[in-house]
């Protein structure tokens, strides 16, 4: 890497030209980037658009060939049915279970990740064991866990499912947060320690602000894993705490395919996440840009 003096000398003529060129390039690039961004967004959003459109269509429009791209009228009958029949409670169940398990996983996981990152607690063995928990395909453990839960009386209960999701998300949280924490120069914490802070204070005042973007990115995906899980919810619930993915599969009948209900329920089930992302993206992006302006 060239020294500072070389940079300073270049700031004369060549640097000026470079900057002007960069600005012109910059404007054209910006336009091109916008076009690309819009194209990509359209492609990625199209299936979601289609799903939402189905939820607004009438049965004739849904089962129409060639397919209808935009319904004649935006009608909310399909949603009304879900509310009337009380199926909406499954969205609430998902929300409740996913939120609590995410909070638990984030808190416990980040603490654990800090310990692993800074102290290498348990050495490689512990880290590897934790990571290995995430490798296990849910199928492999779902039946024994079901038996365990029957014995404990936890089948079809909120706490049962919450604990299960927390346990399944912990490895991911620990992994990701360990990476983000390790990225932070340890000197900042050490100087805070020397200043007399306890470890807890160090975590709260030094570490947390610095990993905020990573924290939120991890929290978002942890929430999504819990929210969208299908296989655990399928086996561990019966009728009390049915979550929305399982409810959606109820609409795939052998003698009926409630596409309208499937779409409407999926839309309802996705809406809370969209809202959460809309709120969190402020932190996400701010976190990202703050992180970029590091000293």
């Amino acid at each position: 890497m060239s020294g500072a003096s070389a940079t300073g000398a270049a700031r004369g003529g060549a640097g000026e030209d470079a900057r002007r060129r960069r600005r012109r390039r910059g404007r054209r690039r910006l336009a091109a980037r916008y076009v690309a961004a819009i194209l990509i967004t359209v492609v990625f959003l199209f299936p979601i658009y289609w799903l939402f459109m189905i939820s607004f269509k009438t049965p004739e429009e849904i089962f129409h060939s060639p397919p209808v791209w935009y319904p004649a009228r935006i009608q909310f009958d399909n949603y009304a049915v879900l509310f009337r029949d009380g199926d909406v409670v499954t969205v609430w169940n998902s929300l409740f279970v996913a939120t609590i398990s995410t909070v638990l996983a984030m808190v416990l996981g980040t603490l654990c990740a800090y310990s692993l990152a800074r102290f290498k607690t348990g050495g490689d063995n512990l880290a590897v064991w934790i990571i290995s928990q995430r490798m296990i395909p849910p199928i492999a453990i779902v039946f024994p866990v079901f038996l365990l839960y029957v014995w404990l009386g936890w089948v079809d209960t909120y706490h049962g499912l919450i604990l299960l999701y927390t346990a399944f998300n912990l490895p991911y949280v620990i992994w990701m947060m360990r990476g983000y924490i390790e990225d932070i120069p340890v000197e900042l914490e050490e100087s805070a320690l020397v200043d007399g802070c306890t470890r807890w204070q160090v975590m709260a005042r030094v570490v947390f602000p610095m990993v905020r973007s990573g924290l939120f990115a991890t929290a978002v995906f942890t929430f999504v894993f819990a929210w969208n899980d299908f296989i655990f919810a399928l086996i561990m619930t019966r009728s009390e705490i049915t979550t929305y993915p399982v409810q959606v599969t109820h609409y795939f009948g052998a003698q009926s395919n409630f596409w309208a209900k499937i779409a409407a329920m999926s839309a309802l089930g996705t809406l809370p996440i969209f809202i959460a992302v809309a709120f969190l993206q402020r932190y996400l992006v701010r976190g990202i840009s703050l992180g970029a302006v590091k000293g």
Partner: protein
Amino acid sequence: MSGPLSASEAGMGFRIGLFADRRFKYLVIAPAVFILLFIGLFPLIYSLVVSFQNINMMEEDTSFSGLMQYRLLFQDLRLWQSLGHTLLITAIALPIELLIGLLMALLFLEHMPGRPVFVSLLVLPTMIAPIVAGATWRLLFDNRYGPINQVLGWFAGEPMTVLWVIKANLVYPAILLAEIWQWTPFMFLILLAALSNVDKNLTEAAEIDGASDWRIFWRIVMPAIWPVMAIALLIRGLDLFRLFDVVWALTKGGPGTMTETISIYTYIQGFRQFETSYTAAIAFLVIVMLSVAVIFALRRMEITR
């Protein structure tokens, strides 16, 4: 916070700090480890025990059957095929997701007005329940009611009958399309966060020095984001290995058993055929294989760092 400490005070504080640190570091991992043991260990032990027995749909034969299940396992062609299918999907989807995610992250890296809107919109596919995503693509691919064949027909000039979830040569593209659509945004977000954390000073200095964008990328940016990228690849790779929902919604493992992933096969064996012991043996095989793979991958990652 108090003012500067005297040397002896600092020394004492240091020793106390050490002791407090020890308590801290174990205290802090305790709840997480406890939960993991609870949910993680019991099923493992249970599965191991059961895999040496002979429990299936009709019989609850809990006598010790030795390695019978494991012997069957090695002769089971369908099992190894399902592993092959899973690896195939992983090997194709993972690089594509990485590449497209990286390109997207680079596209959005520099500041542009309205970026937050784009980012939050692009992340949406990952938010949909995979089973719902599979169902949505099932409809998109539908021959009569789906827009994809309709659009293909516009390009071809005549109605196209493309049976995406039926024909042997189309099922894999269909699954890959749905899967890549859903999870590329995951890579995108992770890489965007990682790229944003790359020290601007380094890149700017190199730029002024006249290094090409390409070299800057390879020599400075890539090594900087490699740790996070490696973890993201590992996570996504493991997720792909466990693939179930999307394939189930699109083809249920068909036609025949052509798109059966290891999770689908295990599900069928365990929950349709009730071959409890055999399934436990499969579960063990899978865990062992994955452990080896992950340990190998982690060691390599540690070395590069």
